[in-house]
Each structure stands twice: as C-alpha cells, then as structure tokens.
C-alpha cells in the first residue's frame, strides 16, 4: 500500500510517487547498455564482456576490462566535473579541450629532465634552469594556466555579457593556437620521474574519483553549489535575491579551467609527452558525459553523480566497440547519435514537466 505523508497545510502526498531521481534512469541505461554488450558478446563473439573467461585467472569479473573502462574516461571525466557545474549554472564551456592542449605543452616544458639515456634531452624547450624542477613547479604552472584561461572566460561572460558559447569558442581557438605556437608544433617530452607518477597506472582514476566526491559535496552542500543551481534555473531571480551572479560566474569558469588544466597534467604525465593536438574534442566528450548523465543544457538541473554515470556509459560504449572489434569510426558515429539523443531526451523531459 502506498504510504501517505502529510505536508504543510494538510495536503497529503505519496512519497513513493515522489519523482524518482533522474540518476536512476542513467544507471538503468548503463546497466542496459552493458547487458547488451554482454549478450552480443556471448551470442556472436563467444566471449564475455564483463566476466572473466580465462582459465588461468581466478576472478569473477574481467577486471582488466573494467579497469580500462574507467581509466579511459577518467581524464575527460575530470573535465566533465568542471563542465557539469558550468552547465548547471546555465553556461557552456567549449574551451576545455584546447586548454588541455595549451596547458600540457606549457606544463611539460617545466617538467622535463635534463639527461635522457645519457644524452641531453632532445626535446628541451628551456635551458638548464628549467630542467629537473621539483614536480610541484610544473603542476603549479599548469594549474595557473587553467586558472587564467578560466578567469578570462568567466570575466568575458560575466562582464561583457557575450554568450558563453562565443566566449569559450574564442578561448578554444586561441588556446589551440597557443599550443601550436609554443614549440612550433613539436612535441614536448621526457618528463622527470616525479612528474611521470601523476598519471601512472590507475592514478587518473584515483584523481577523478576523489574530485568527483569533492564536487558532489560542493554542489550539494555549499552555498556555491546552491547558487549554481539557482543561477542556471533563473538568473534574473538569483540577481534579485541578492546573489552576486557575476562573481559566481567568474568562479564557475575559473574552476572549470583549473580542472581542464589538471586533466592536462594527468594526460601529459600518463603519455610522458605533450603534443599540440592534445585534448582535441575533449570538450565535446565532457559535455556529452554530462548531458548523458542528465545534466540539462537549459541549466538548473543535473548532478555530479549523473555525470559520473554518464562517463561510465561513455567508457562502456567505447570498450564495447573495441570488444566487438568494430572500427573506431563506428564509435564516433554512435557517440554523435548518443549526444543528440541525450539532448532530445532532455528537451522532451523539459516539455513534460513544464508548468502550465
């Protein structure tokens, strides 16, 4: 029997019928997609997607694949956390991928080691003074790059009132140009051992998950988080209620920039090199993760938990396609379909819940 509870003023409601959290739907989608790959695998490949099938390994799951699923989305996932709070507060950030490129190039230039295999570093950007610096230096430089880029984004959007789409598009083109100019298109390589640790093994996952927990708490339990939702929901009302909307926007984009820079540090450390094309399309992947996870492009709705689930869906699909030995082209095409599908779903949801 449905349990009823009493609200204020004697109106009763049924808590069971309380709109279920949208994350549940995303989780359901994740389970469905994973199951689909499992079934297709069993039927057509004679192999399991999720479960261990090797005799010499004693495990229920195919941990290797599970690790890869989360590892390959964790770097873009870090960006997606920043993008999530941007979209919730009613904006969009197209610059994160390019910020990754530019930051990786600059950061790596301060993370190089002087001697490679007994010879001087062939990719050295600066002189001796920039060699073998403590790992804190390149990381600090990198995060500062992201901070500045985000600050510029935020200030442009808050004070010149140009649409976030345009402001961050400008930053996207600018930062990509910067990363090409930095070393005339040459890769920057051979980091110190200390720097190489940051992206080693499962470190990206650890960083992603810790930040996800942190941002989940920030969005749900702090003034900052509340104001993200408020501004994305009704900017005018937020202003009239005394929220310093402009300051908030600057902060939102600055944090997004810092997270993109952190992703740059992790990815350049993981690959032991930085290239000017690094982070290409990351911004769209990050936006897709958020949107798939139920973050509304209209602003005001979504959650970090949703984005994390969205990232996992992303990872499962990519791994699934590799597992089915399908070409990377299909991945791209399916990704495109999923992004548009998620937005259509959001619009549709919006229509259904809109007030009369």
């Amino acid at each position, binding site marked *: 029997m449905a349990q009823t509870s009493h609200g*204020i003023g004697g109106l*009763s409601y049924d808590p069971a019928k309380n709109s279920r959290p949208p994350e549940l739907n995303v989780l359901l989608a994740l389970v469905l997609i994973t199951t689909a790959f499992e079934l297709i695998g069993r039927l057509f490949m004679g192999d399991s997607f999720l479960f261990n099938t090797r005799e010499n390994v004693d495990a229920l799951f195919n941990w290797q694949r599970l690790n890869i699923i989360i590892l390959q989305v964790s770097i873009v996932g870090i960006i997606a956390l920043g993008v999530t709070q941007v979209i919730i507060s009613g904006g969009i950030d197209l610059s994160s991928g390019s910020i990754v490129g530019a930051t990786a190039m600059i950061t790596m230039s301060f993370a190089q080691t002087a001697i490679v295999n007994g010879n001087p570093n062939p990719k050295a950007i600066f002189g001796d003074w920039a060699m073998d610096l403590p790992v804190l230096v390149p990381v600090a430089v990198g995060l500062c790059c992201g901070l500045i880029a985000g600050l510029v984004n935020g200030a442009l959007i808050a004070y010149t009132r140009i649409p976030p789409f345009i402001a961050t598009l400008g930053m996207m083109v600018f930062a990509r140009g910067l990363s090409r100019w930095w070393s005339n298109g040459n890769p920057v390589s051979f980091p110190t051992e200390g720097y190489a640790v940051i992206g080693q093994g499962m470190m990206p996952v650890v960083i992603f998950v810790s930040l996800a927990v942190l941002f989940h708490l920030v969005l749900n339990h702090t003034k900052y988080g509340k104001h993200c939702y408020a501004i*994305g929901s009704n900017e005018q009302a937020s202003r009239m*209620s005394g929220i310093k909307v402009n300051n908030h926007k600057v*902060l939102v984009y600055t944090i997004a920039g810092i997270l993109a820079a952190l992703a740059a540090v992790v990815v350049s450390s993981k690959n032991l090199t930085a290239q000017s094309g690094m982070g290409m399309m990351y911004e769209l992947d990050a936006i897709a993760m958020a949107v798939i996870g139920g973050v509304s492009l209209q602003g005001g709705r979504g959650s970090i938990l949703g984005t994390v689930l969205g990232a996992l869906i992303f990872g499962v699909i990519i791994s699934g396609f590799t597992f089915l030995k399908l070409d990377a082209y299909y991945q791209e095409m399916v990704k495109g379909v999923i992004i548009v599908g998620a937005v259509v779903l959001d619009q549709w949801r919006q229509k259904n819940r809109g007030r009369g």
Partner: protein
Amino acid sequence: MSNVILETRGLTKHYSGVHALSDANFILHKGEHVAIMGDNGAGKSTFVRQLTGVEQPTRGQIVFDGIEHTFASPIEAREAGIETVFQNLALADDLDVPSNLFLGREKFRIRLGPFSILDKKAMREATTQALIKTGVKIPNLMNTIRNMSGGQRQCVAIARTAAFKSKLVIMDEPTAALGVQETAQVENIIRTLKEAGEPLILISHNMRQVFDLADRIVVFRRGRIVANLRKEETDGQDVVSYITGAKTGAEFEGAT
C-alpha cells in the same frame, strides 16, 4: 526623528526614451499601509524596482528610515530592511521551497566564503515555521517548485518576506494568481503586519482589497503620481476616475 519610514523625492526612471516613472514624490509613515493603484504600464512595478535596488533610478532620492540610500543591489535594500514580493516572484524553479526561501541569504553550518557549508536542517525548519505562520499549503517542501501551482508559488514568495525581520514590506500584486481562500490568507497576513505595526506598500488592481486593507491610496498614471487619497475621504468611483485620467488630484494639477 519623524514618523516617516520612506520618502522619495523626484524619483525618476527612463528606459532609453520611455519615461516609465517621472518625479515621484512619495511618503510612507511608520505603521502605515499604502496601496498603489494604476493601469497596466502605469509605472508601479518600475517604482518598486527603484526602491528595492533592482534598478538604479535615473534621478531622485530615496530616504529610508531617516537615511538617504542609493541601493546598488536588491541585497542592499534587503539589508536595510526592505522585503519585497516581486510581481514576477523571483523564484528559481529547479530549487525546493527552503532553497527558494533562503535564496541569497542561506544559513550556514561552517563559513568558508563561497564554499560555506549549508545548514539545510535549520533552513528546512525555519521554512516550515514561516509557511505555518502564513498558512500556506504545500505538499512536500523538498520538491522543486517547478510543478507547484501558481498560487503555491506565490505563497512561497510571500512566506519569504515573513521569514525575515524587516522594516518595510512591499508586495507587487501578491494575490494576482490566487484563489478565493488563498487571497483571504494573504490578506490575513497583511492584517497581521498591520497589527504588528509593520509598514506596507501594496500594489493591487483589486478595489475591494485595497479598501479593505489600506489606509491610503496612491494612484499612478503614465509614470506619474496623480492622486494621494485617504481611504475615508474617497470611494471606488473616485479612485477609478483618477486611474483613467478623468480626474487629477489638486496638488498634482499641471503634472500631466
């Protein structure tokens, strides 16, 4: 000092060519309830927006509680003690009731600048108190207000003014979307304010309501104040003729 809580002198607002408000000289005494009437587009809401820091007047002075103010933002007006129910309500649809009630002035458990930790429990309890005080009916506080009825939303906006201490309450058409019962409820809230000696500016198109609640009626027409009428010395017919422009108050002759 005097018993004047609010005075505006020559308050004027132009929106690039549109003279939405011209030379408004307005006085409100402590404990007094004044109704503002006027046709659509007469400048009533514009007047309110200048008083509450939502917009900055083109010229003119605002003296509130003996001090001349230039409110740069709604929060400054609120900190000075002016609580407002705006005509467009100023609510965030995707937030629940407590979040809307405390929008922009949240309660905190730990203060950490922008990352201060919210005291959700305290806000929820204070919200319940405020809603009970105003007799509002809301099924579930923790639902977003998106799906609530127009009246419920209006009640949330009104409860917001009741939840905080203030020196002046301004309500811009607070009962416009309400049913009979809810209207009576809001009118009761206004009477409670009157008993407590809290001054109020009420904007309304409802003649009966205005005559029930207000001590004085100020009529706006085409951005100007055209009449200032004590309730005992006027009637509905009279007020209508000022609203439509058939009549202009003696002291305002030549103004239009």
